[in-house]
């Protein structure tokens, strides 16, 4: 392709510099700048939270992880000065130090929720995600199988697709209102795990259905035809020739769904989340079914509470950034898993 000329300056095929070319170059650099500015912004946000949050989650000595922060319930933080030194103690420590020994406690400032750890919130989030995903996966995958394998083009299928498309655009707070109206009040479940599960499951349902359907559709028609030609029934065909190949795709989409379920605050604000709950979900139950009808703490709601209701200062920072960091880490790990899995699957099945 290269011309036989030795000096590239004399190459007659190279474009001559002109005003148009300079303008083009400028616009190109402008667009590149815009693109990288977005990336810089994300990095700034993630780094701020990671750096400040790491101080709360990690400690400089063995075992290097702040066990207290990850295994205790949130408490009120007491900040006080003794002999010119400032101390921070969580409520239980403060009581143990002063009140139980009958000593007069020094004047202190208190910050609600800023002491202790976030263990109940982590457990609550995991429970919410597990239940909601179970419901959403059962409903979502079954719906996707119907839409892609059984459904015939017709008004019913159109109606279902239209509903799914529109459901995907409904704001999460509206799901919250709906869950509040239907589950919490109409069905009288109160603020409970069950209400949160169904609200979150319905919220994530459109995502799961459309992604699963896409995974099912990407299985080549030849597989189905071959199976049917061998005399299998439709269900056998789906079970043996379609689902095994679509399963990785379905799982990938569901992990992305998990990230969404774990990350949303608005739907659980008044269906499942408690401001503060000392007991863990399996403690203090009268009957086994009470488990489903109890509210739990959740990381996103806890983060909302500590960032909206607490002042920004050195004492509250630990809880705020720590919660944000742990929360972000959980969600980011899920999202990254799904992104990496998707890339791997794409390269493996190349029909």
């Amino acid at each position, binding site marked *: 392709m290269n011309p036989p000329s030795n000096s590239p300056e004399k190459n007659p095929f190279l474009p001559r510099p002109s005003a148009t070319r300079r303008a083009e170059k400028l616009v*190109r650099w402008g*667009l*590149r700048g*815009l*693109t990288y*500015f*977005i*990336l810089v912004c*994300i990095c700034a*946000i993630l780094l701020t939270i990671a750096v400040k949050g790491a101080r709360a989650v990690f400690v400089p000595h063995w075992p290097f992880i702040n066990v207290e922060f990850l295994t205790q319930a949130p408490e009120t933080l007491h900040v006080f000065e003794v002999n010119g030194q400032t101390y921070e103690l969580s409520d239980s420590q403060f009581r143990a130090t002063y009140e139980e020994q009958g000593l007069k406690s020094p004047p202190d400032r208190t910050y609600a929720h800023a002491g202790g750890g976030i263990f109940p919130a982590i457990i609550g989030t995991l429970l919410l995600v597990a239940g909601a995903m179970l419901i959403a996966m059962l*409903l979502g995958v*079954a*719906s996707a*199988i*119907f*839409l892609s394998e059984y459904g015939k083009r017709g008004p019913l299928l159109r109606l*279902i697709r239209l*509903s*799914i498309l*529109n*459901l*995907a*655009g*409904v*704001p999460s*707070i*509206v799901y*919250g*209102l*709906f869950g*509040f*109206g239907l589950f919490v*009040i*109409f069905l009288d479940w109160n603020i409970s795990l069950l209400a949160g599960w169904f609200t979150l499951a319905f919220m994530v*349902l459109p995502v799961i*259905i459309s992604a699963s359907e896409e995974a099912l559709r990407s299985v080549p028609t030849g597989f189905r035809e071959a199976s*049917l030609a061998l*005399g299998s*029934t*439709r*269900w056998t065909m789906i079970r043996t020739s379609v689902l095994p190949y679509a399963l990785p795709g379905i799982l990938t989409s569901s992990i*992305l769904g998990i990230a969404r379920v774990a*990350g*949303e*605050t*608005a739907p659980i*604000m*008044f269906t499942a989340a408690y401001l503060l709950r000392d007991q863990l979900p399996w403690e203090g139950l009268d009957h086994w079914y009470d488990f489903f009808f109890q509210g739990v703490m959740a990381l*996103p709601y806890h*983060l909302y509470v500590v*960032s*909206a209701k607490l002042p*920004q200062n050195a004492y509250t920072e630990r809880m705020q*950034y720590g919660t*944000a960091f742990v*929360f972000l880490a959980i*969600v*980011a790990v899920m*999202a990254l898993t799904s*992104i990496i899995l998707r890339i791997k699957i794409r390269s493996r099945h190349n029909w």
Partner: protein
Amino acid sequence: MDGPTAQSPLNLRRQRDPRVFGVDRQSLLKAFFGGNAIVAVIVLLLITFFLFREGLSFFPQYREDMELYRRSGMEYASLVKQEHDRFNELLGQLVDIRKRQIRQLESEGKTREEIAALTAPMQAYFYDFSDLAIPLRDYQIAVRDLAAETYKQARMDAEQHRIDTTHTADQHAHVIDYDGTITQIKATFPQLTALNNQLESDMLVVLRKFPPLEDPSLQPLVKAFRKDAIAFTAGLPHYGATLAEWEPERSVGLWEALKTFLFGEQWIVNNNGHSLFGLLPLLTGSLLVTGIAIVLALPFGVGAAIYTNQMARRGEAGFIKPCIEFITAIPSVVIGFFGIAVFGTLVRELSGTPWLDWLPGFPIAERLNAFTAGCLLALMAIPTIFTLSEDALSRVPRVYTESSLALGATRFQTTMRIIVPTAVSGIVSAVLLGIGRVIGETMVVLLCAGNRIRIPDFSEGLATPFQPVHTMTGIIAQEMGEVAQGGIHYRALFCVGVVLFLLTLLINFAAQKIFRHTRVGE
């Protein structure tokens, strides 16, 4: 799919499936999967049903409350109060002027006594001015006291009526004396007219006595005060006429309740009295925040899509795409937290630097405002706009590009004149979906928009974004936790939810229509 029916020497007949209730297994499975799919439709129907059931029952209740409010005379009292409030705004302007004057003198290094002596005329004028409205204030309080008792009784009565609907109206112990109150109030009309006339003439006299102020920096404030005061004085007869025309007997229609909700300019929740549920402050707040977010996200989202799809090298694009898509995975509450903890303070401190003074609205007074929320929402809208625009760009048929290049256009010209215009419908629908995402976003606006329920003052021009606002999503999240179930406030919040639901459905629908309408190359 039915097994072969022809008899053959080989046993090719398929084994019959076991039947349950006379239906074979295949149909059962199909029905099971179909039933699950229909759940999506059912959920949509349920959402619509519940939102509308709770939301629409707001209007009859609101109408009833408005009617009680009017019949008991409280409406009249609030009208008088509006006039008094206008006067108090004038007073506020005077206080402002005085404060500025004192600050100015302090900065000149005057002592306390000197300042007192220098501001004495202004002080005296302030007292003179505030004395003018004393009769008006007394009148307002008298009328309010008259009406409040009746209104309270009427509300209790209505509450009771709602609780036991079995009782008929005549079984109620006491009959509320609406007419008596109204007659009493109407008897005070001449008093108000006289009062307003007096105020008008007094104002004109007092305005002339305005003390001279040497400081030129105060002149714009003084001018504004004079203008507003004259406008107020000129409006007094008009006020009197409106008040005299007040008709307590006119019943409130449903339409009026709907109008008050949709176009009401105030959202004031009063648990023991009459609440005002006006959507306008929330709607304008939502639209302002969304507007800022989209104006910022549009160049970034579309620009990045064009760059990644058309100009970036393969490896570069493979790096940029997942990075931007990763933003979707960041929970909104984390972004809101970043806004409240870092970004809001950062913007305010930045706005305080002297060399940025020329920008409108700088320095910013409030840390949390529509701009802070808008910037963060822009970041959340970027992945939606980017991904869908990029999709639209890559769907442009190859032939278009090749033809353009073959005609001698440069790559850049091809991109800008051929590919982007072809993909524009996809880009527009991407932007619409971005708007839909932003308008329904809750946590960022709840944390970062400042949560002040007031229609933003658009007269400030480009400084408008720096005012704190409240939004539709924010108000639901903030107030839903604390309302009594079935009460008027509870229903009002559902009604806001209905508006939000319809708005997002409309936006999504438009996006789909545009997308389908001008699809190219498929």
